[in-house]
């Protein structure tokens, strides 16, 4: 397997979806290619960082606006919850 072919397989490799034969070829290549090891490692970290990141707090006015909207709707008794 060459570097360019490996790059194309990284995504499936880190998802554990790659054919076992290709996994063996890919890992054999990694043993001898530091650049590809770095690309695989940092791609895996990229996915982990996004996966683990907590969302930011809502901007203050957004939360307020949402609360106001629903408070007004509840006061008016807007139908919508039960359809019966």
């Amino acid at each position: 397997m060459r570097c360019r072919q490996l790059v194309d397989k990284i995504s499936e490799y880190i998802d554990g979806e790659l054919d076992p034969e290709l996994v063996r070829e890919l890992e054999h290549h990694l043993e001898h290619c530091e650049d590809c090891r770095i690309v695989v490692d940092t791609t895996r970290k990229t996915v982990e960082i996004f996966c683990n990141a907590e969302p930011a707090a809502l901007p203050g006015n957004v939360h307020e606006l949402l609360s106001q909207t629903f408070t007004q709707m509840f006061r008016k008794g807007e139908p919508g919850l039960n359809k019966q």
Partner: protein
Amino acid sequence: MPTHLDNEQSIVAAAQAGDPAAFVRLLDQYSRHIYRLGLSITGNHQDAEDVLQEASLKAYRGLADFQGNSRFYTWLVRIAVNVALGKLRQRALWKESSLDEPREGEDGCFIPLEIESWGQDPEKACLNNELQQILAEVIQKLDPKSRTIFTLRDVEKFSLEETATLLGLSIPVIKTRLSRSRLKLREELTKYFGKDARNAMPTTRR
């Protein structure tokens, strides 16, 4: 994906029975995630705000239709994704194949340019709000379709099949876009987290 609320089923049932506080509790649990989803897909705060607002209203009005076959959050995300995609379609961004085509070699492969290992623990190298800012910025380097796919699959952890169904795209298309998105984002994050990239780190601590 956010964690379940304790006793979520009974909270949803209370909301369906007409308890406003129960619905607000559900929104409080998930609104930050829905806002982030809207921001990732649409790329701007005004649209993200609209996505949250409109999806919340649709969820409230359609609560009786929620059968409990999936998590409440999954149901809410489906609504929000449809609202967000509606925004992209209005802006005619969805059909554009790409605003930022990936670099390709002659054989169609993406060619990495940034080859530099990262520090031991990049997530701890910056404050949480700095990290959120970096992630929000780099994801906008992807075209709208790719960042929608990436957000659903890698941020919200939907399966390939669910992502394909939500977006009306084939699984091979999802896989190809996801692969290129991951590689592109890896390059962008290397500019921040690469061992020689410390100076590129944005800072709110002055």
